[in-house]
């Protein structure tokens, strides 16, 4: 990259923000894939059933809770 671009604070800020956005999009993409498989068990209808909807709203947070549990339990076994 042009060294003057690397020293451009506006450009650096832009790249940081874009990187954050990419990470957020990746997290949403990954969790949507996991939660779709878990929560949408039949052929998709014209709207989500109440149980599918409720499953989807809780799925991401429970996945995060579980990640913490797994990290803690693997650390305590070292």
């Amino acid at each position, binding site marked *: *990259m*042009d060294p003057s*671009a690397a020293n*451009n604070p*506006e*450009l650096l800020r*832009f*790249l940081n923000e*874009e990187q954050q*956005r*990419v990470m*957020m*999009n*990746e*997290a*949403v*993409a990954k*969790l*949507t*894939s996991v*939660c*779709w498989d878990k*929560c*949408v068990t039949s*052929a*998709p*209808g*014209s*709207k*989500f059933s109440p149980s599918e*909807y409720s499953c*989807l*709203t*809780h*799925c*991401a*947070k429970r996945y995060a809770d579980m990640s913490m549990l797994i990290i803690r339990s693997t650390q305590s076994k070292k």
Partner: protein
Amino acid sequence: MDFSSPSPPMGSGQSPEALMEQVQAQLQQAYAEELIETLRGKCFDKCVTKPGSSLSSGESSCVSRCVDRYIEAMGIISRSLFSQQR
């Protein structure tokens, strides 16, 4: 995300503004490609359970509902991840 697709080298004597636009355009395209690939996999699984000699009308309408629901699910997941209440 894959940046290996052939495109003009970044930042070669460009203005910062042009570079930012190029970055955003490439991210947008990568994002769209990734979504389409995901939808292909998910909706094929759900809607084309036994491939026949052509896509039936039932399968086609399932696919269009599947695309709508998957995008709705992304919105639900995104809100649940980035809103504060649990």
